[in-house]
């Protein structure tokens, strides 16, 4: 109870050692500025098995669980939130392939993801505000052995042509409800008819470019359907369970990383002839930050643990995502404040941890969305 097993502790340590050895602040600042992906580190991480650890070994995954994937995300983000997010999200969307696709598609895609040969991205949203299932217009039409896709997607994490996109499409009729008319289709990035328009800089996570993708008669084999036709809504819910746990894990690491940096800084920084750490207010801030991190960790691990036991608890997952992301935002924000003027400088790193944390909070449903989910479930049926 409440303790990781030995294998989990080893994975945690391995991920931390890898990140300490490979990540580099100056490289991060440079890649963030240029909005470039850490290709070399990604390959190394894949070689060491850090990508796709929750996929079966037959697809070259680690055969472990989301808890382990989360431990890696946490360790990476703790050492560097931006680098950590880039690596953790290298295969985003492939989780759905693993959970829902048939064996053929899995064999085609997952080993390449685990090896770091291709990336994967999700193409769900059609509005800048975020996902609104009732207004998914991108259509996928079955024509014999093929699927033809038309439409436009936004907020797509993009790294060009060498990868695949998980596209949420309308396969039902226009007036069908989202529950029975959406489907997921995997589309290779190099397909004819795809136009990629860069969305420009983002608040954070800038090693991953965001783009607007248009699909014009993009044709893929019918075997690229992920899961069942018309079941996209339910698959999306399950995918969100998994990705929200991973997001919570990233946020947890980001929070821990900001806390670690703050503790180091206040112990050496002097003001009024005393170390910052000696002021009662500083101690209280650290106490509050540490408590937030501890709580985020407990609920994130529990959510992952239950997921891996096959008892994924959507309410708990929403709580974990909300709690952990909020902890990351607040802890990083307080770290900036403790750093003072230096905290506002990119060099201090904590301002970047804040920006990355805010990404985690706004993606996959902001706080209000999580509270809608939790509140409705807690209240249950009303007579």
């Amino acid at each position: 109870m409440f303790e990781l097993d030995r294998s989990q502790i080893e994975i945690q340590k391995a991920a931390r050692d890898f990140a300490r050895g490979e990540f580099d602040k100056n490289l991060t600042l440079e890649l963030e500025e240029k909005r470039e992906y850490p290709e070399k580190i990604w390959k190394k991480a894949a070689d060491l098995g850090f990508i796709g650890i929750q996929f079966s070994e037959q697809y070259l995954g680690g055969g472990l669980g989301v808890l382990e994937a989360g431990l890696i995300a946490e360790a990476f983000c703790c050492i560097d939130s931006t680098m950590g997010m880039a690596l953790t999200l290298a295969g985003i969307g492939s989780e759905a392939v693993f959970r829902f696709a048939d064996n053929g598609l899995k064999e085609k895609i997952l080993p390449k993801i685990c090896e770091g040969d291709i990336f994967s991205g999700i193409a769900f949203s059609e509005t800048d505000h975020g996902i609104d299932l009732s207004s998914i217009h991108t259509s996928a039409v079955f024509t014999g052995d093929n699927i033809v896709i038309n439409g436009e997607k936004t907020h797509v994490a993009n790294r060009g042509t060498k990868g695949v996109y998980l596209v949420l499409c309308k396969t039902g009729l226009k007036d069908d409800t989202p529950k029975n008319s959406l489907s997921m289709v995997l589309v290779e990035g190099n397909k004819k008819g795809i136009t990629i328009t860069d969305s420009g800089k983002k608040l954070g996570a800038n090693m991953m470019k965001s783009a607007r993708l248009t699909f014009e008669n993009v044709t893929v084999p019918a075997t690229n359907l992920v899961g069942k036709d018309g079941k996209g809504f339910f698959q999306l819910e399950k995918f969100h369970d998994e990705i929200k746990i991973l997001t919570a894990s990233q946020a947890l690491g980001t929070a821990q990383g900001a806390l670690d940096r703050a503790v180091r800084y206040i112990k050496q920084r002097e003001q009024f002839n005393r170390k910052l750490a000696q002021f009662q207010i500083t101690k209280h801030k650290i106490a509050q930050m540490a408590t937030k991190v501890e709580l985020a960790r407990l609920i994130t691990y529990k959510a992952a643990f239950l997921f891996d036991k096959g008892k994924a608890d959507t309410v708990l997952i929403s709580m974990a995502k909300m709690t952990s992301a909020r902890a990351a935002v607040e802890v990083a924000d307080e770290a900036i404040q403790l750093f003072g003027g230096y905290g506002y400088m990119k060099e201090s790193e904590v301002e970047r941890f804040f920006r990355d944390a805010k990404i985690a909070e706004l993606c996959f449903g902001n706080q209000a969305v999580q509270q809608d989910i939790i509140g409705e479930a807690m209240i249950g049926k009303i007579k």
Partner: protein
Amino acid sequence: MKMDILKYTKEHNQFRERLSAFLAKEITPFVDQWEQDHIVPKSAWQKTGKAGFLCPSITPEYGGIGGDFLYSVIVAEEFSHTAHSGLAASLHSDVVVPYIDSFGSKEQKEKYLPGCVSGDIITAIAMTEPDAGSDVAGMKTTAVEQGDQVVINGSKTFISNGINCDLLLLAAIDPKVANRHQAVSLYLVEDKTPGFKRGRQLDKMGWNSQDTAELFFSDCRIPKTNRLGEPGSGFLQLMMKLQQERLVCAMGAVFAAERIMEFAVDYCKNTILKGKPLVRSQAVQFAIVEMTTEVKLGRTFMEKLCADHMEGENIIIETSMAKYWTTDMLNRIAERSMDLCGESALLESNIMARTKRDVRVMSIFAGTNEIMKGIAAKFMGM
């Protein structure tokens, strides 16, 4: 008729209209470029000065209009519509230049003030040091008087206008004076003085159009006549001016928060989710009401303090409180507005992303908010 705490005259209102038109034409269209350049061209400062919008408090004798503090309020409010920080008019006009105006000799005023008003002289204030932060008593930069000269050694950091500045208001200590508070003097250091070197421009979370830099002084010699007032009076001078500095911060925070709310309300009225505008969501409504309430509280308090400040009242406790509360409020509101904007707030093309990055510094600069609380506690007798 609603009761006005600040009583604007027809002259004030005409000034505001002219300024508003000027900004819309000469400043706002260029902001995106300046944000990319990480600096505002000096010519923009000069345009602003020539148009009569810098240092409105300076008497006509030195080129100003001799306006009251309401002109400063108007400048701060209208500049908030430009949503950028590079052309830091309030910092120049209401924080730095008043030191010269209040404590400078006639010669100093004649030499510098007309340029400050015209925008030919951009000023900066150099207090913060790498190891001292908000702690004035921990200052290490030395100024040693030798004959007719003063020799300055040390370094300063996080200096706004650090690259653009033509004239620097520098705080330094006389190492021979044991009492640190009596050791501080303020000096005017001109650009290009030998021994004064600019360090790198600092990469920041936000304020991208603002040229913030490190400054270095290595046997930098200035004439003794560039000391402001008597030797050792620097600490007192700072104390006398901090009330206005904090009030200026509070003004900036309130105005920025008002701009955010305008944007957020507009966004939520015009963005459709699940077939309804966002404002039809009760949670969105409550968030907007709560934020608007905080902004109104902040504005009323700030206006009251402006009125008291104009009466010459000592409101050091209240301005310290206002500085911390309004800047914290601004940060809360900037972040909550992002929450309302959902994922679109993650794109830098949405003004909310830049705004949040920009406002974050306000609870840190001009004395961190923790320093503000300490000051208030001290003056409240604790």
